[in-house]
């Protein structure tokens, strides 16, 4: 009989027979069988014995008993990982993770009280500081002019700090010139902020107005 044409692949012969190769290696070995008469003959010769070794309970038990106590603990440990156990563990993990998420989902409902920040003309000259609770949304109501025809840019900056929010081109005003804008301040840190309304057009009462508020 001829020799194996590829010794490296030829070494996988018994693993192939017993179905122990990975999918990729099985493919490589079967491609090798196209070229190698030696391995082809060996596989055919051992087919029935391979089937007994891979599917006969007595053969499996015999192998287990020869391997002996070395793997006894391992077997017990492995057998514990049955599909049911895995499923159970997965369910517990999902539950544990879901509880905080569930609470988190509820929290915005509870905390999403819309606060109102009324920036009406009376405040434009005052030094009042409006306090807002950290988190949730704030409904900013501001007065921009009786006959506003243009839009307004709204900018919120940290007091003497970075701009944290820009809402350009706001134009949703009612007949009285009151605009209502809802913004989320969930990401705002505690501290003072300045809200600037820049309104275009000659007819606006507030070409530029600034308000201060504090998040606590």
């Amino acid at each position: 009989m001829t020799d194996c044409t590829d010794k490296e692949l030829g070494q996988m012969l018994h693993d192939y027979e017993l179905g122990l190769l990975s999918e990729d290696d099985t493919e490589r070995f079967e491609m090798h069988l196209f070229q190698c008469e030696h391995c082809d003959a060996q596989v055919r010769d051992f087919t029935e014995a391979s089937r007994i070794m891979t599917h006969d309970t007595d053969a499996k038990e015999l192998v287990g008993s020869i391997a002996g106590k070395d793997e006894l603990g391992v077997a017990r440990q492995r057998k514990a990982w049955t599909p049911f156990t895995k499923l159970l563990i997965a369910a517990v993990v999902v539950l544990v993770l879901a509880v905080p998420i569930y609470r988190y989902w509820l929290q915005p409902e509870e905390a999403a009280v819309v606060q109102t920040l009324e920036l009406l003309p009376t405040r434009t000259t005052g030094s009042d500081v409006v306090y807002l609770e950290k988190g949730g949304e704030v409904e900013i109501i501001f007065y921009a002019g009786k006959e506003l025809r243009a839009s307004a840019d709204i900018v919120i900056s940290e007091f003497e700090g970075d701009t944290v929010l820009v809402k350009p081109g706001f134009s949703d005003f009612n007949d009285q010139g009151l605009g209502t804008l809802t913004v989320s301040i969930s990401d705002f840190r505690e501290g003072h902020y300045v809200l600037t309304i820049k309104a275009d057009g000659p007819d606006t009462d507030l070409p530029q107005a600034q308000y201060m508020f504090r998040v606590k």
Partner: protein
Amino acid sequence: MTRTIDELHSLVVSGDQKAEVQLFSALADKFRLFAHRRVWNSQEAEDLVQNALMVVTKEYLQLEIETSFSAWAYKVIQNRLLAYIQKRRREEGRNVPDDSCAYLAGSWVPDPVLKMKLLDCLRKVGSTNRRYARILNLHQIGFSRKEVCQRLGMHLQQSYMVMSRARAMLRECLEKGDISR
């Protein structure tokens, strides 16, 4: 010396009609080997082989093969086998391994004489080559080859060598009734 399938294919392409018969005979032989390994029902395995051969017959002369004829032909049978196993898996609604039709093993009865001899030889080989028995057992437990190697402190190539040697001993034992120590 027997020609390989790719050599036979080259002859057929160059116009050798005798080689065509040899090519399909050799191809059927290979296809049967792969099919019977995965599909233990002989009739169903043969249907798959014939189906794959039909595809090859229809397409092999028109096709522009980029790699080799045997690689292409292998894909033809492999795709049919995989599709068959997936279909059976859907029908049976349980986990059938990709690489084998173990679900057909229920109707399979091993040759009792061979089984007795094999069990005797396995006992002898396993006692002599303990690492072989441990590799097999760890696989049965569910470890991958990488995990088996880590556990037994050996390289992958080493594990293949252990398997090869053990197989040679098993064959010797099956032929002679014992192993030379």
